[in-house]
């Protein structure tokens, strides 16, 4: 059985300087209750790994508004003007990574791999500082794995063992982040009885999940 708690209880062990992965794509599939609890807790100096900084007041954008991040690994900050400004003025270290590379770095982190070889970014500024490896005449960049202390995720439904299912485009980075963090907290719309998710339909196995929080 996975412990079910409130959002505030779930984030209590997140402390200054930690690395947090947060699911979502422009706010869709982001655990809003957990992000809100982290904002209320006020923990600073966080390294956040997430697809995008969403919009002001939306999803991960709230952590941009509250200036709780010191480093942000992401693919897109165009929805939140403050991210761009903070990057220009050096207030926030932003590592921009192609979205598919970011996904593979996270997948590699959770899969025990030493990284991945991707052709994406060859011949662009993305290749700066990275090893280039040629396999069968094609050049690839070595992209290193990403891991985190915590993952804050959103799923549609969980059973009491933490087996998860998602809804439409709210799945995005959540399943891969579930594998790549030491402690995985999942906000769900509903916790349903054991046996109500067919084993074949489970998207994220419950073994990855540490805490469940009931959200919207």
């Amino acid at each position, binding site marked *: 059985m996975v412990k079910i708690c409130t959002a505030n209880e779930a984030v209590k062990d997140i402390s200054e300087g930690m690395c947090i992965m947060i699911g979502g794509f422009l706010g869709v599939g982001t655990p809003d209750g957990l992000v809100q609890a982290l904002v209320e807790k006020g923990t600073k100096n966080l390294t956040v790994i997430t697809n995008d900084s969403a919009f002001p007041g939306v999803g991960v954008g709230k952590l941009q508004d509250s200036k709780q991040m010191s480093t942000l690994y992401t693919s897109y900050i165009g929805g939140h003007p403050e991210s761009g400004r903070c990057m220009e003025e050096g207030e926030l270290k932003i590592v921009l990574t192609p979205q598919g590379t970011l996904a593979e770095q996270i997948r590699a982190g959770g899969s025990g791999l030493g990284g991945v070889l991707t052709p994406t970014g060859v*011949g662009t500024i993305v290749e700066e500082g990275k090893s280039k490896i040629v396999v069968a005449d094609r050049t690839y960049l070595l992209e290193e794995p990403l891991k985190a202390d915590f993952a804050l995720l959103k799923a549609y439904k969980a059973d009491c063992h933490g087996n998860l299912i998602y809804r*439409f485009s709210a799945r995005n980075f959540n399943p891969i982040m579930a594998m790549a963090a030491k402690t995985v907290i999942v906000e769900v719309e509903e916790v349903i009885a054991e046996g109500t998710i067919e084993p074949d339909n489970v998207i994220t196995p419950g073994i990855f999940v540490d805490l469940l929080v009931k959200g919207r």
Partner: protein
Amino acid sequence: MTQMDKRIRIAKRVAKELHDGDVVNLGIGMPTLVANYLSHGVSIVLHSENGFLGIGPEPQAELADKDLVNAGGKPVTIQENGCCFDSAMSFAIIRGGHVDTTVLGALEVDEQGNLANWMVPGKRISGMGGAMDLVVGAKKIIIAMEHINKDGTAKIVKQCSLPLTAQAEVDLIITDMAVIAVYKDGLHLIEIAESTTLEEVVAATDAHLHFSEDNIRIF
């Protein structure tokens, strides 16, 4: 010609490049219009990089689903034969060559098929999102854009001066003035738009265009 007329002309011409059954990723903005102009009998499968295949039309506002948006965050629908997946799978589909065609806008394209469409030094940066993966991974890369910038400067150039999105990946450039194919030896002008002249296209292009006047078609 109004801005909208130009965009529709481009979208209609891009639509002719798509075949029945193609898996297609349309960039945000003007490329999205292409889906409205598919030839009769052509049905395509639209890929959305935030994790599904089978994008359907925009819903009426009251039917919007909070969990169903396109890569620009706008509400969409999903077709009955659609399917959902995570971001790693989504980009495996892209990078693995399972997307037949992607249609994207550009800031600059050059004679080698290099593309710059994600950043302008000194201007606020947005990030590349999924564009770099799409341009490297999709089988056919179509650039859909206005032929020149608003200030009259060329977007099709000898060599890109802006930071690249990808190197030598562009296959076809479709603008309001022309259709240009990118081959190993450079840019080949294959069609010009109705009401446009060859001289106008050449003057609006800062790259060398290969063509033989007799073979240029009108679109």
